[in-house]
């Protein structure tokens, strides 16, 4: 053993014995980094964002004035444009969440309760892989499919129909597609947690499969659906790339992005909308038991 290593070990031993029997110090040392980054850096940035919503832009110089003004908040409430944008975004987020819940439930149920061990593993990978493969690539493929020369119109044309093209319907379709795995996984985990004996008990007591589903499985897995909905809802609220690629409509994200370089205070005020909506959503989700369950 070289002398260098000796010194090193001596140091680590001395350090370690300093921490031994001082659990508070240990916690402090463990948390200093993560809390410094997240509580000070990240939460601090969010706090500054909240403050920045009350700044304004000097109309002559275009510089940000770090004073207090209610200008942006007033614009947010008074301009009908923003009201309709917020309404549209929240409506699409709700629709996407509903669509994903309906699509995800059968897959999750099959995975959790009916598939063989092997089938389960295969399906899980099948759902996981697209979750992690490029977000942008997925939007791009829908953009080409929905275009007027695309495969959707080509399939529908013989029937005298044509696809939705670019617009709100396209945004709804693509977002439902993008966030589907985020719904499948928590529902699957929630269903896995329901003991099979409960289902057997319900069957033995004479309940038809649908009754078992409605009275036993659904109530027990509902919190998991809510947990999944947190992600489908939140991701839809904040996405501005999808609306840009498959529609000409403005969503909250688009107006935030468009204002970031020339009117940062207004962009900050607009960013408060998804925060407020999500905080309200999370509070309701917590009431419904989504946090304990997942």
């Amino acid at each position, binding site marked *: 053993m070289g002398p260098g290593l000796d010194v090193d070990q001596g140091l*680590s031993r001395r350090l370690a014995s300093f921490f031994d029997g001082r659990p508070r110090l240990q916690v402090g040392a463990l948390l200093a980094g*993560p809390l410094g980054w997240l509580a000070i850096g990240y939460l601090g940035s969010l706090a500054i964002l909240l403050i920045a919503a009350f700044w304004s832009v000097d109309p002559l110089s275009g510089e940000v004035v770090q004073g207090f003004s209610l200008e942006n908040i007033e614009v947010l409430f008074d301009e009908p444009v923003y009201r309709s944008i917020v309404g549209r975004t929240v409506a699409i987020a709700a629709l996407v969440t509903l669509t994903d819940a309906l699509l995800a439930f059968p897959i999750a149920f099959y995975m959790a309760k009916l598939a063989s061990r092997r089938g389960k593993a295969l399906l899980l990978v099948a759902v996981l892989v697209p*979750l992690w493969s490029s977000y942008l690539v997925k939007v791009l493929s829908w953009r080409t499919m929905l275009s007027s020369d695309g495969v959707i119109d080509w399939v529908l044309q013989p029937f005298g129909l044509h696809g939705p093209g670019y617009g709100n319907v396209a945004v709804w379709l693509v977002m439902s597609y993008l966030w589907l795995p985020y719904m*499948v996984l928590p529902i699957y985990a929630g269903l*896995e947690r329901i003991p099979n004996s409960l289902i057997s008990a319900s069957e033995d007591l004479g309940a038809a499969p649908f009754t*078992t589903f409605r009275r036993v499985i659904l109530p027990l897995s509902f919190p998991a659906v809510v947990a999944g909905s947190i*992600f489908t809802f939140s991701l839809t609220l904040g996405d501005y790339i999808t609306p840009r690629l498959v529609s000409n409509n403005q969503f909250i994200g688009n107006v935030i992005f468009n204002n970031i370089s020339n009117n940062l205070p207004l962009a900050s005020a607009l960013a408060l909308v998804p925060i407020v909506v999500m905080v309200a959503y999370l509070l309701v989700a917590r009431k419904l038991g989504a946090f304990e369950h997942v």
Partner: protein
Amino acid sequence: MRLSRKAALILRAGVGVGLAFIYVPLLVLALYAFNSSSILKWPPPGLTLDWFGKALEDEFAREAFLTSLKAGAVATAIALALGTLASLAVARHRFFGRETISFLVILPIALPGIVTGVALSNTFTQVLGIDLGFFTVIVGHATFCIVVVYNNTIARLRRLSTSFEEASADLGAHTWQTFRFVTLPNLRSALGAGALLAFGLSFDEIIVTTFTIGAGEETLPIWIFRNLFRPNQLPVVNAVAVLVVLISILPVYLAHRLTREEGGPAAARGGAVEAEATAVP
């Protein structure tokens, strides 16, 4: 459970529809990458490998790819350190506000990416006076990657009985030795999986990136996004997109393999699914 033939059939059909919905768009895009015409009309008139050659030769795409690799590597390293520290504190100690830590770690991905992006960009440019660039991208990415590492390690720590660590301490090992020789070896595959997923997340991210990147820089998703609107570049973009999907599948597959041994299929995302609020990005 028992299901009637009809119900089972309907359920299978539902699964089929769901999976088709997931995979058809990816297949369509893959086919377009081999399209011999540069116009994206369906069906493609013929097939060619030319676009892949052009994609590999594209100087800007290569530059962007390298930037993405570097940003992913540094962000992952930071997330690995911070995520592991936080998970050790929460899983192995009791202290005031312990429950809040999980919430705090999840927040950067529970809130829409645009909020994180605007908040960070605002702080950098208006308060700290830091110009946007490679550094600010890394800070943004590390912030939302911490949760993936944290979830994977904390799930493992909870499964891992503390009696090993107690035995180690009883035998006279000090805290650092116990961590180095008992805890860490048991965490290794969870850390590996967490790191791979964090890297995948960073490699793919675009929304936070658009708010934190400097004017002169491009990550690969940013390159794709900027070239989407140039019609003559589109076939090259398709080829790059297919390569990106192939590259991003690899870490996910490896992460799945790494955590498979401990408790089944949920393992790859398992940390997330089992431990905390399904913290998927």
